[in-house]
């Protein structure tokens, strides 16, 4: 399959982008910064082509379905959404140093995906639904926004520790990170993007479940964990908007929220039983 070849190339490009972003932390030249963004963008383009090709190839072999249905496909899609979301955030807020904390995700996720079976399987009856694409896309773009918030919040915790020291002991490395206020702001803004998407993802999932089984909510572990993630971010938003929780407390909640997200996505399937298809 040609799509596997392209996916393989994109893993290397993501690896390369990650190395560049980490070295950008050390040598902050404008030129290097441009190369970083270019490399990540290159990875995104190759991976998008790979996904589209896989979609096309599924028609070639007479199956014909969106490549969003098993663990392998969801992982590669997750890697893509993180890279794209990060690029948008970088462009909007100009925080290139955060890349070193976010770009490992696409690489690690793609590398992990490559360990999983990747042949194109046809769809079982339960997955043959128009709700598949909207449900998966909203959930994963939401997860990706939370992943970027996680990376930025992590960076925030480093930065704020450094700012508390005097300028002399702060060191050149940390001194050049983006201002903590900006990191805090980006950490919040990305959650403000992820939360509505997760909400829509849960609702489309409920709607689909109702069409397939006659129950919009059955406290299945996956459903329950998505609710847990939703509740954590809802608590974050209430604390932040109403009580002005900023900085360290907000960053920690964002990190907790993303760990719960990862458990919802992978942990539930690996450790608990349930209705979702990529248990594998």
């Amino acid at each position, binding site marked *: 399959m040609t799509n596997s070849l392209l996916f393989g190339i994109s893993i290397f490009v993501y690896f390369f982008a990650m190395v560049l972003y980490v070295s950008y932390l050390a040598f902050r030249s404008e030129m290097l910064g441009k190369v970083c963004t270019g490399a990540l963008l290159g990875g995104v383009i190759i991976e998008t082509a790979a996904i589209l090709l896989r979609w096309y190839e599924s028609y070639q072999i007479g199956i014909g379905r969106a490549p969003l249905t098993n663990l392998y496909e969801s992982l590669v899609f997750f890697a893509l959404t993180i890279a794209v979301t990060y690029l948008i955030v970088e462009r909007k807020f100009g925080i290139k140093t955060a890349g070193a904390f976010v770009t490992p995700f696409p690489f690690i996720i793609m590398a992990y995906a490559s360990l999983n079976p990747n042949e194109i*399987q*046809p769809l*079982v*009856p*339960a997955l*043959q*639904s128009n709700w598949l694409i909207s449900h998966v896309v909203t959930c994963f773009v939401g997860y990706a926004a939370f992943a970027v918030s996680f990376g930025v919040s992590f960076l925030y915790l480093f930065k704020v520790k450094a700012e508390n020291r005097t300028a002399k002991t702060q060191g050149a490395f940390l001194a050049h990170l983006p201002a903590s206020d900006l990191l805090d702001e980006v950490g919040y803004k990305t959650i*403000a*993007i992820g*939360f*509505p998407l997760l*909400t*829509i993802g849960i*609702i489309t999932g*409920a*709607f*689909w479940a*109702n*069409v*397939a*089984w*006659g*129950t*919009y*909510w059955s*406290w299945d*572990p996956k459903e*329950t*964990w998505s*609710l*847990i993630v939703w*509740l*954590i971010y*809802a*608590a974050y938003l*209430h*604390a932040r908007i*109403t*009580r002005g929780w900023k900085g360290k407390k907000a960053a920690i909640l964002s990190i907790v929220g993303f760990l*719960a997200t990862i458990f919802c996505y992978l942990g*539930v399937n690996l450790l*608990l*039983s349930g209705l979702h298809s990529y248990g594998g």
Partner: protein
Amino acid sequence: MSEEMKKPKKGPDIVDRIWNFFTSLKLVIVLLLVLSIVSVLGTVIEQNKLPQEYYSYLSPGTVELFGKLGFLDMYHSWWFTSCLALLALNIIACTMDRYPAIIRGMKKKNVVLDDKLAAELTADLTKIKYNLPAEEVEKQAIALAGKDFSVHPLVTEVENTRHLFFETGKYGRLSFLLTHLSILVIFAGAITGSLFGFKGYVNVYEGETISAISAGKNEVKTLNFSVRCNSFNVDFYPNGMPKDYRSDLSVIQDGKEVIRKTIRVNDPLTYQGITFYQSSYGGFPDITFDVMDKNGVLLGSAFTPFRQKTVVPGANLTIEVADYQEHFHLPDGSEGGPAIGLNIYTPAAPPEGIWITPGQPGVNHDGTYSFVVKGFNMKKYTGLQVAKDPGVWFVWLGSVMLVVGIMLAFFVSHKKLWIRIRSDERGKTELTAGGTANKNKHAFASELKRLAKRLQEVS
């Protein structure tokens, strides 16, 4: 009147304290976190399993304790429900608390940029003087501000001074009401569903008609119509994965077919608010046996409907097909193909059960009888999930409210802009502009700065 005078402390302190408790943000955050922690527990301990399944990894004492605490059906336990009820009360109290301020915020009150209002806006206030007539300045100001606001501001003239009031995103203020009420609407839907709806299950054999389903443990629900399964089919992909499950169903009311539809997974049939979902399938055979004695002499033949004790004419015995398995596992775990579980009852010996492979004679324990499958008629059935949920529309309404509310909350800010224009005695025109926004004040401040810059360029 100051805030304190508006609310004299009439009632006892306790009422205030209860009100403060239910409207406190602390309660919201604690409830959200408690609900999430409790939900984690519910995914770690498997819910609503049979007692035997718990005994395999928990001691009987623990199972009993967990049962009493509601840990085995946590989401329906009194304390989980209480948490949800507390959340509902909390939402109601907060909504009542915030409602007046929200409505006040949406009303246009200050359409005139007077000194008092100007003092509140100083941070965003811009003053510009022009050598242009007032009409021209007003025209250009409206054109510039109209890009972000409406080109039809509310104009008020007070003592030769024109006040232009622009406003956008007023309905962004409804985000609080929409998001919070949506949760109550969803709760209302869930309660309506559990009070007036039901969930059930039924197996319908091909050609058979049913009018009752099993709903919950030992409970049978009778429908006032009946459903016939005309046929059931499964398709497979070349690699053996299931491709399609189809049940051709007819709804029969007063002896007449009113609907006929082929249902699939993701494409159910609804009649009178009751929906039938394709859920599972299976089949059982009716078998005709030839029964021989130990010398191979035919004693008799018997048509044996599935799970019905049948007397074999000519032989002093009764047989029953108790089980049928498509993929029988041999003792070593390997695949043994289809197998029939046959119970044999004779007056002389205790009942015994044997497995028979179609195509090979089956012999009972002491070799008195042998059984040969002569006729095999598989009766297929479709397994249907049956549900009626009159609350589901509330759930979807609440969902839409929630999404709209969240979008308004994050992306729609209520922005107000005032522009005051007056000419002085020397024919110069003075413009003063200022604004407020209820969200994302930083972004709004830079937006106003850009507008001020453009206003400055007017000539």
